[in-house]
């Protein structure tokens, strides 16, 4: 399995770069992953989404889709795409150190 090094620690990732063990993630890694995804600086609005992703993953075992994020994270779909232009659910999951959410909607 491939590994990546964030904040000085080696973590296991899948082929697309998502952490395979969310337990290895630390908050310090977020900024570095975000930068690699083309997001310069993580604002409190980004963090609201990232923390929501982790909470949902812990509660349900899978990250939320964009639709669920738009309905329940407190951030609208429009703003989600402004914060994460390359796909909110996918990008935020990667930064939050959880597996890529699956789902067609």
């Amino acid at each position, binding site marked *: 399995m491939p590994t990546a090094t964030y904040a000085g620690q080696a973590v296991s990732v899948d082929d697309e770069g998502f952490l395979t063990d969310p337990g290895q993630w630390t908050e310090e890694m977020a900024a570095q992953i975000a930068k690699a995804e083309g997001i310069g600086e993580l604002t409190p609005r980004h963090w609201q989404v990232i923390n929501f992703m982790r909470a949902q993953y812990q509660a349900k075992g899978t990250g939320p889709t964009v*639709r669920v994020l738009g309905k329940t994270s407190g951030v609208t*779909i429009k703003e989600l*795409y402004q914060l994460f*232009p390359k796909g*909110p659910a996918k990008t935020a999951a990667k930064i939050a150190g959880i597996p890529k959410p699956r789902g067609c*909607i």
Partner: protein
Amino acid sequence: MNATIEKVSIIVSKGSLEGIYPALIMANGARAEGIEANLFFTFFGLDAVTRRRHDHIKVATVGNPGLHVATLVGALPGMPGLMTSYLEHKMARLDIPPIPEFIEMISDSGGGIYGCQASCDLFGITKDDLIEQVQGIITVGEFYAMAAGGQIIFT
């Protein structure tokens, strides 16, 4: 890195529920992956973005072998409404949004929504007849210019 798709332009030509949803799912899914997406509504597909019709899209109960309903039964009065309610109920349980909400969501996510000039001329439809998310009524040439460099999907 494997090959990637940067942009999709999806043409919606059918006005049935099963003709419209796949295109919306593909456009929304494209945006979720960070892929640029445009929807171009032509012919009966315009119903999906027409104010007085977009909330009344029905599944085709006749001439639709996949539905497994005999043609004569499918033709009975009330059948399209009944089958549509049944499917909508099932979709709601899977958290698939109704068509108007779905199109609003695609628009909010940065997907382009356009009407076809020739079809609007044919049916006497103007911009006022279409929902607010429609960014413009465009010609086929303008569509190709917009789609240039990406993939075109016809449904």
